[in-house]
């Protein structure tokens, strides 16, 4: 189902200068590694025209993980930018790419049909940039006029009402993270790491300004990724692809939404579950018939009780809005209804009963 690349990228013709994704030396992005993070977002010159239109300039390449993280139904526009000569390296299908200094990952969080004015509202733009071999955070909070965003690492809780794709009015207490909240999720031992840009999340077609293209191929085409990426990247299914196997969809969902805590070296690796895609072919790592080590009451016999949603702590935590119960711990104030339904269907499909 995925494109297989056998040709060496180096042998391909150089992208034409008209390719909007090409990191030409004249990329207008302003990024002085000794001076960042800048006080305001506009200084970087990541976007062309009105800032709020989020139209990338030359060299700012859009991307979208095959399976995205859920953040209170916020829409996201993600971009990557690298300075001249920088190039990411492959580090494993399920590991984030290994980026060079000066690389910037840009993630805009916004809602459409925000009430009462039924308008788009960009809430924040999060940057991860690499300096001296380490990632650093910079979060820009947008003003009410949507003309500028200001560096602010102190966090805030923003009540937001919007009309969703099903024409339902929804409410969330959207959380802009503090720096320490960023780190809680973007962590590998004591280092800051990106989560989304890993090969298994980029081996798919994305609609670029100049047409659809496999994302890894695009990154290579514009010079943002080394050539020797293995041709066969093991990827999950799309979690929301209803034609796929329920358990494979669950594996895809928990990889991007849960594995940044529930993997070795992460914030909550002392719990028994292991949610990285590479580890969930074993249902035990998904918690199937595994007793929870957190005492949530005798209702929850197992993390996943085969065939019994009501006795499964995973379902309880994913459907709860209470912050001491809900999972993921950070990044959501409302339940992801579609994902809860998926987990419900999956648990109901499991047999035999745990014992």
């Amino acid at each position, binding site marked *: 189902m995925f494109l297989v690349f056998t040709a060496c990228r180096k042998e391909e013709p150089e992208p034409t200068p008209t390719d909007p994704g090409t990191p030409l030396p004249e990329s207008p992005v302003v990024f002085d590694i000794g001076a960042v993070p800048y006080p305001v977002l506009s200084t970087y010159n990541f976007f062309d025209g009105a800032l709020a239109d989020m139209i990338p300039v030359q060299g700012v390449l859009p991307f979208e993980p095959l399976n995205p993280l859920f953040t209170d139904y916020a829409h996201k526009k993600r971009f990557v930018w690298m300075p001249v000569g920088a190039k990411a390296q492959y580090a494993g299908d399920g590991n984030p790419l290994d980026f060079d200094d000066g690389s910037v990952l840009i993630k805009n969080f916004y809602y459409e049909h925000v009430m009462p004015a039924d308008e788009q509202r960009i809430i924040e733009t999060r940057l991860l940039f690499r300096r001296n071999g380490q990632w650093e955070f910079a979060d820009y909070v947008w003003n009410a006029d949507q003309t500028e965003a200001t560096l602010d690492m102190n*966090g805030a809780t923003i009540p937001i009402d919007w009309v969703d794709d099903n024409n339902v009015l929804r409410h969330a207490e959207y959380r802009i993270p503090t720096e320490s909240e960023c780190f809680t999720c973007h962590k590998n031992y004591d280092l800051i790491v990106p989560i989304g840009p890993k090969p298994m999340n980029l081996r798919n077609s994305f609609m670029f300004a100049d047409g659809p293209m496999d994302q890894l191929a695009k990154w290579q085409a514009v010079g943002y990724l080394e050539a020797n990426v293995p041709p066969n990247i093991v990827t999950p299914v799309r979690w929301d692809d209803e034609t796929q196997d329920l358990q494979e969809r669950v594996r895809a969902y928990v990889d991007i939404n849960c594995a940044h805590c529930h993997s070795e070296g992460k914030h909550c690796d002392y719990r028994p579950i292991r949610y990285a895609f590479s580890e969930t072919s074993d249902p035990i790592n998904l918690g199937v018939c595994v007793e929870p080590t957190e*005492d949530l009451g005798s209702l929850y016999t197992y993390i996943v009780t085969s065939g019994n949603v009501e006795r499964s702590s995973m379902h309880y935590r994913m459907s709860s809005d209470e912050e001491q119960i809900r999972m993921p711990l950070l990044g959501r104030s409302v339940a992801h209804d579609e994902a809860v339904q998926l987990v419900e269907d999956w648990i109901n499909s499991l047999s035999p009963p745990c014992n």
Partner: protein
Amino acid sequence: MKNTGLLSIALLAATIATAQNSCSTAISVGVGSYVVSAVDGPEIPDPICAQNGLGNTSASEWYAFTATGINTITVSTDLPGSQGVDTRINVYSGSCGSLTCVGGDDDSGDGNTSIASWNSVTGVTYLIAFDNRWSSLGFHFSIVGSDPVNALINFTPQTVSVSGSSLAVVDMDGDGLDDLVAVTSTNINIHHQLATGGFSSTNITTTTADHSASWSLAAGDLDDNGFRDLMYGSGSGVTFMIANEDGTIFHEVSPPEYIFTQRTNFIDINNDGILDAFACHDVEPNCYFMNDGNGDLTFIQGGIGDTPDGGNYGSLWVDYDNDGDADCFISKCRGAQQPSGINQLLQNNNGVFTDVAPLVGLADNTQTWSSAWGDFDNDGDMDVLVGASSFQNGGHQLMRNDGFTTFTNVTVGSGYDTFTGVGHEHVTYDFNNDGWLDIMGAGNVIMINNGNMTFTQSPVPAGIGAMGDLNNDGFWDIVNEGTIYMNTGNNNNYLKVRTIGTVSNRDGIGARVEVITAQGNQIRDVRAGEGFRYMSSIGAHFGLGLTDAITEVIVRWPSGIVDHIMTPTINGTLTVVEGAHPVGIDEAEAAELNLFPNPVQDILQVTASTDLSNAIINVLDASGKQVLNATLINGRFDVSKLTSGAYTVTITKDKTIMVRRFTK
């Protein structure tokens, strides 16, 4: 003929199935084994005695058992014939329509079978209802009677209608009786305990708290008005709900600072006599709020547990080194084997906190969200059970305080080496009032202290929750949301000590209370905020076993003042007002002690009817800090170096302590 026979059996089965379909038609059963073909009787048991609430319960099967003696009766579906069917049991006394729970269970047996036990009274008929909360399939059950279990610990569930999360059992209105507090972000529901028994429930609407009590709640009197205030700990910060002068209105104070709050406590951090507030931070250094006594709470981050990425889950204030000030133990938890997961013991040296855990053997990386501190061996210092929330880095650790310099790991053979339950909450109280502190943690189990630093698992119907004495019988009760598990008690004696500070904070939080009896001594620290999430009764609660007299109760206040109460009445509450009980001098004699001149310039003269030569003089300023330490010579001491202000002086001669106030 064969067909007829089958029909007869079928008819009989149908008859039985119908007969047991409701409380009023419960089938009488005795000790023995029985078969239930299906749970299909249309009556919904009320109340539900077992865990896990009403849920999808729509049917039940009823049996009546009349006790022929005083026994422990056990109803169990954990039989091979049940094939692991997910059963649930409710057991009642009383009559249909007005049933009272005496027992109940969900899931204690193998698979999802259930086992419920209770102690019977001769001649009483108990009603047993199996419900279909989980399954309507048939099962087998047995009824067995045994000699009464001398567990000294038993609880009777009692339902209450609460609004919100039942997070606290604490005396909110200063009447000396614990109340039950449930909160939502807009409401405080207080079940005030009545002197005559039972409760009067009030709901106090509040402004919508910026930060709800999702992670923890603490209670304490921040403004010394006699009505306790609340502190809500959420993932984004803390909110204080301050009670007005009669406790009928709560005023919200929500500091803007971000705190990923875990355990919250009230404690007088700088020992100025005014209660401060502390909040564990999950992902940053800990935070606290210094109270100036005028309603201003100053946010401070740093100085009390400064691991950059936090890992702080359970703060507990304890005087581990018996030096009269409260130290702070932080139970820590963190993945990836990071330093933020190593527990800290922050020794208080005049308000400067230094981590001494590495020196005393407590710098352990057990994944813990709370630890239980108490004098488990009654040798006069505080020991600790470091309670595991995960066995990833090792299990529960029972650490014995050996002279403040070393905590010795005595887990092996203690009962905690074989206890497999893990959880967030670990607290210690003397649940059976036998004079030895027990420990409750995960699961429906209380670890009963055997008196020799070993513990025996005792199953109880309640899980951990807020605790206090909700029927004023001297025994610890446990609240699980809408159910109070009333401790049925026993014949052991007890004493509850209620501390009212004058120079120290009004709650007396941080005071050390000592009970001296001919059989031995016990100590408690007065605390606000133990375990992980809940707020349990403030005070010092002592079980006395069969000891029927207390020689002396000593209260050592954070101010340095010491009260001595000789031979207090036991089996009740002793209220101690700071400074009211100087020892060895009767009130008439004390009245004859005078200071002059007052106000004073340089030299204070002391006159008394008793010989005070060479008495020790300790002068405390208005904030409770010691500012002068001297010896009384010729009935005089020099205060010329003190600045103008109000002072308290304690005059100690042999074992006699007298407290007076003067102004300069």
